[in-house]
């Protein structure tokens, strides 16, 4: 995310004579984002899966979590749906970029705005904002519903401390993962490829590295983008050996920034 902000900043400076200003590009990208149905479907799916599955899991596990033989914390369940909702953030992040390549729209985009970095920055900024808001709202709705069932068993949690942090943490994580996917999308320029690569990295590879032995393996697990970034979205992570919420998110943000920088360099050099 750091890279985007810096990029947006430097681009604004030179906007007087080099192509349309950032404000105009931002308005154009906002129109693009909200005038296709896929945006709305994906955001609705984010909410339904993210909030719905949290409520469902809390309802199903509340009495077990309250019992003596529970070996997990209720804090791991109160944002459970966000683990699935992250898939929709990946899909949205990919679609925002790769459908333009798939349909040839990208040529219209770069003919209208030759400063390609501005297109990348505007897309990133809008996606991050939308996913942060939708992610936080989804987490809050899931908490409200899920905590109702936990409360009935006497194990409810107040909206403070780690729980509160996990609410906007869910927004931050979805925004981050969307941005991560935007970068991959500009690099690969292909919808299915982008979604597969990111999901494989987050969901499959992130777990497979557990098989790597020794301290090296432990660190690999900690540093995988999905593992590092997701801790912030839950009050109590299932895996206690991961990095702390803010440390982990900083690692994830740095990884995303590197990927975005790579996307920016490639985007400028490559023919559209």
């Amino acid at each position: 995310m750091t890279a985007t902000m810096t990029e947006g900043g430097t681009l604004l400076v030179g906007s007087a004579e080099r192509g349309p200003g950032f404000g105009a590009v931002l308005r154009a990208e906002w129109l693009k984002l909200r005038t296709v149905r896929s945006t709305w479907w994906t955001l609705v799916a984010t909410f339904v899966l993210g909030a719905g599955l949290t409520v469902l899991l809390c309802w199903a596990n509340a009495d077990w979590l309250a019992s003596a033989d529970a070996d997990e914390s209720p804090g791991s369940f109160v944002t459970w749906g966000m683990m699935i909702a992250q898939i929709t953030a990946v899909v949205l992040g990919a679609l925002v970029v790769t459908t333009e390549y798939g349909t040839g729209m990208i040529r219209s985009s770069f003919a209208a705005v030759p400063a390609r970095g501005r297109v990348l920055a505007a897309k990133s900024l809008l996606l991050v904002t939308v996913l942060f808001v939708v992610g936080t709202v989804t987490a809050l709705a899931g908490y409200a519903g899920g905590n109702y069932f936990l409360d009935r068993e006497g194990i409810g949690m107040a909206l403070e401390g780690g729980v509160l942090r996990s609410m906007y943490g869910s927004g931050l994580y979805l925004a981050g993962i969307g941005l991560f996917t935007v970068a991959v999308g500009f690099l690969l320029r292909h919808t299915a490829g982008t979604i597969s690569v990111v999901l494989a990295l987050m969901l499959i590879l992130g777990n497979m590295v557990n098989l790597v032995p020794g301290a090296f393996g432990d660190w690999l697990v900690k540093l995988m983008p999905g593992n590092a970034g997701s801790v912030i979205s839950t009050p109590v992570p299932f895996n206690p050996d991961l990095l702390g919420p803010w440390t982990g998110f900083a690692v994830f943000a740095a990884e995303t920034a590197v990927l975005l920088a790579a996307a920016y360099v490639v985007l400028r050099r490559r023919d559209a």
Partner: protein
Amino acid sequence: MIRAHALTKRFATGKGQTRVAVDGIDFVVEPGRVTGFLGPNGAGKSTTMRMILGLDAPTSGTVSVNGHRYAAAPAPLREIGALLDAHAIHPGRSARDHLRWMAASNGIPTTRVGEVLELVGLESVAGQRAGRYSLGMGQRLGIAAAMLGDPPVVVLDEPVNGLDPEGIRWVRTFARQLADEGRTVFISSHLMSEMALMADHLLVIGRGSILADCSMSDFMSDHAASYVRVKAPALADVENLLSGRGLDVTRVDDELRVVGLDAAAVGELAFRHGLMLHELTLVRSSLEDAFMALTADSVEYHAADASRGALR
């Protein structure tokens, strides 16, 4: 005005090899007339057009629009309008929304969207998703997008592709009108017949090189000449007779090609001198033939010779 200087584009074809798509071409596209950009498929037309628009970076050389590099324009759509291909549109977005984001990106007032929709006759279907459009409607939408910024330079890549005769006529009239308004109009096509009806000036490209850069009328008189073919048993006598009259006579194999006299006059002359003719034909080489001849060596992909049994 569009000006290209030593414009070159090489593509990597893998294994460290490159293919030259555009080979150091120079040209100027002047305002106030329709310039046809003609060449067989794969000749470098689209690559050249993408370089004009800054979508592809030239390997070397420069191309400028209205005196500066395209990407340097504060509102590029007000400098040059382009139809690259009808599919440069998201199928799920309506025509109106497509034009709205384009307008927003260049600070063009939204009222202009309605104007260009009316200009191309799409107002009634502007709310429909572009994916449902026919090829012809897609082309019209592309032209509407090109006209959004009321640009002094208009570039249309194969605008009549997939259009019905009425649509083709519409594009032709439209291009003429733009040129009459003093705009620079640059239209590519691989169809000579289409260019003959549309263009004032012709830029012929083959294998990345400019083969001709002249007015349409010059091209016609240079390349689309007609002659009278004469075959006769006493060919040498006929040849002497005709060249004795100061006519332009060339002997090709067993025939004479006579320029400057029509077939009837050649026949009468031979008859009065008692010379028997076996053939007397007016051969008119079409612009299409002229174009084929000019680009024959530069066609990238020849169809396989059918007589060799590919269809057996």
